[in-house]
């Protein structure tokens, strides 16, 4: 995968990988989550300036040694696992062809690159939440839509109620956890 920007081009080799027996379960937890926790979502964000990489953030990625230790390169391009390698940070984002979606976004004329790997169902849920939000708050997002003072007051009240509702939910969850 090659990403071109105004002053820099970056190649991210994508290779098929075959998990060995020991790593199959641990890798699967990346997709399914573990102990009730949300699945990990490998993410890479690179910022460059004047064609030079200025900073990078990598979450839930494997470093090259880990990749070599836990997996071996598959010759078969139908391998269920692929890895997106980043030569800048020498890390790899593991991708399940069946369960993951990869989102690549660029900003600042390509100087910022954001690669995000997430389970398909997480993406579907995210899209659903965003859709619900857009339906509820659509006029607020539209700079051409005029809102009256009462409408704005009600919107503020609703948003601030949500803070209290979420805090209350968390308190309930915490007390249920301590009772268990």
């Amino acid at each position, binding site marked *: 995968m090659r990403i071109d920007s105004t002053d820099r081009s970056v190649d991210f080799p994508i290779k098929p990988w075959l998990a060995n027996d020991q790593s199959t379960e641990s890798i699967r937890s990346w997709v399914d989550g573990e102990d009730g926790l949300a699945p990990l979502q490998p993410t890479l964000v690179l910022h460059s300036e004047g064609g030079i990489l200025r900073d990078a953030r990598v979450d839930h990625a494997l470093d090259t040694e880990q990749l070599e230790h836990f997996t071996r390169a598959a010759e078969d391009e139908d391998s269920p696992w692929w890895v997106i390698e980043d030569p800048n940070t020498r890390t790899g984002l593991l991708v399940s062809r069946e369960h993951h979606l990869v989102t690549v976004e660029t900003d600042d004329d390509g100087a910022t690159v954001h690669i995000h790997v997430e389970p398909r169902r997480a993406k579907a849920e995210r899209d659903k939440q965003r859709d619900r939000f857009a339906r509820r708050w659509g006029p607020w997002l539209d*700079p051409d839509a005029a809102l009256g003072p009462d409408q704005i007051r009600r*919107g503020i009240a609703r948003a601030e109620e949500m803070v209290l509702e*979420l805090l209350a939910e968390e308190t309930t969850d915490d007390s249920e956890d301590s009772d268990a």
Partner: protein
Amino acid sequence: MMSTKITLDHGDIDIDLPAEGQRPRGCDWNESVCTDTPTHTIVVPDHDEDASGPHASTYCARHYAVSLAELLTLHVQQCSGGVREHLSAYGEISAPRWL
């Protein structure tokens, strides 16, 4: 106090920008241009290793409501951690409510 101004000449359009540090703080909404006066604030914690402390954004009333709603219904729901991981304070600039 004398104000230093930088003039950028864009053909027929002259834009006067206050010098660094003198730019008036407006609504921080960045999805569209908003020149309304900020009245409310959303303060979020800074989780970076070199964190310098919570970060406050200021918004006009309209964009405060929608920004707070977006933070709570999209960001908090999709990220790990509870509300306090994503929100430190909210409300009117003159009297923010701290969590």
